[in-house]
């Protein structure tokens, strides 16, 4: 079900930024994290999901975002969103 982890471009702990647009990528990437930066917390490999995807998407990472970075405010709660790597770019610290 899951391809080897070696295919991942990112590592747990990497700081990444979600692209604002990615026309070729999975359209079901939540709008609220686009353009936001977070930390990779888990690698899921490339997930074969024939019911839902046309073809194989790039490997998937869980990325953790502070709620306050996404929506403002002072909350110290967090949002964990699973994103395909083609949506992610390295972000400066």
């Amino acid at each position, binding site marked *: 079900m899951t391809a080897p982890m070696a295919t991942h471009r990112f590592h747990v702990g990497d700081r990444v930024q979600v692209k604002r647009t990615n026309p070729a990528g999975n359209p*079901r990437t939540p709008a609220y994290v686009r353009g936001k930066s977070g930390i990779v917390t888990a690698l899921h490999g490339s997930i074969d999901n024939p*019911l839902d*995807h*046309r073809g194989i998407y790039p490997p998937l990472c869980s990325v953790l975002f502070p709620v306050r970075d996404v929506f403002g405010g002072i909350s110290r*709660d967090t*949002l*964990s969103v699973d994103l395909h790597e083609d949506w992610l770019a390295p972000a400066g610290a």
Partner: protein
Amino acid sequence: MTHSTQAAHGHMQDHEAHVLAVEADLEYWRTKRLEPRVLQLHRRGVVTLYDLLRAAAHISAPPIAASSAEHDIEGRIRALEDALDDYIRGIGLASIDPPEHPSVIEDTRKERGDYDDFFRIAKPHHDGTLDERIARLEHELREYQRLLQVLMHALLEKGVVTAEQIERQRAFLAGRGAWNGARIVARAWVDPAFKQALLTRGREAVRELHIPPGRLGKLGVAENTATLHNVVVCTLCSCYPHDLLGDPPWWYRDDSFKESVVRDPRGTLAHRFDLPLPESVEVRVHDSTSDVRWMVLPRRPAGTEGWSEEELARLVTIDALVGAAEALSPASIARTER
């Protein structure tokens, strides 16, 4: 559902809330599951609207229940909830994919109007007094059920599915459900090796409980600790490990829940679910996708030392599986069973 993991029905506290829940669920299942399916089958020429007209001649109109005269409000609401369960189970049966016409979920989403409001099926307004709303639901449910029966008849008549496939699907649907989730949690509480396997390998681990692991993407398990409380949402649709855990709570599909839980997780838990959490606990929202479908592993309640897995599983509600509640305490379960 022989093993309901929802807290036992006490006396019905809030009629309005029950009616609202039936309205929301009924329209969800009609506009997102049944009718898009009917339209899709018609477009592909598998079962056309004309096949349905022919089939309708074989299905007598359901009798008009004398419930309004026989029952009080609470009895009528319960009857509606039971009929709704039947309807939902029936849609599950009508959703078997014939091998020569496999449907892609993406197509269904398009058909359901998930991507484009233009394709959305209109929902009626539910307003008026409680009595009027109940009467309307009784009427609508009868009509919706009839369409479902006609569709089933046409599917069988045209040989799209066989009676045997339907029986197999019925057995499959009856065997799954939130009870699976409760058993998984209870095993994880008593068996550290199982818990480790569950957290790292997800659905592969559940085979040891003789639960079919299913095939809907990867199962993510988010463990609650003394300093971390997890809650699951799917902001884009309603991804959930359905194949493993059955249906999520009805409000999981509710847009107001999705909207508020990502913006204000702590406030949503406190105000909407009466689950205030101390500042020392981080609240983490997992936005599920169809690739990784998340469930929450709640904390084992205090005072359950030496309990059997079966007893422990009864503490796990479907709300706890998505993080909208903690597992029940031994005291609360004693109250509901008295």
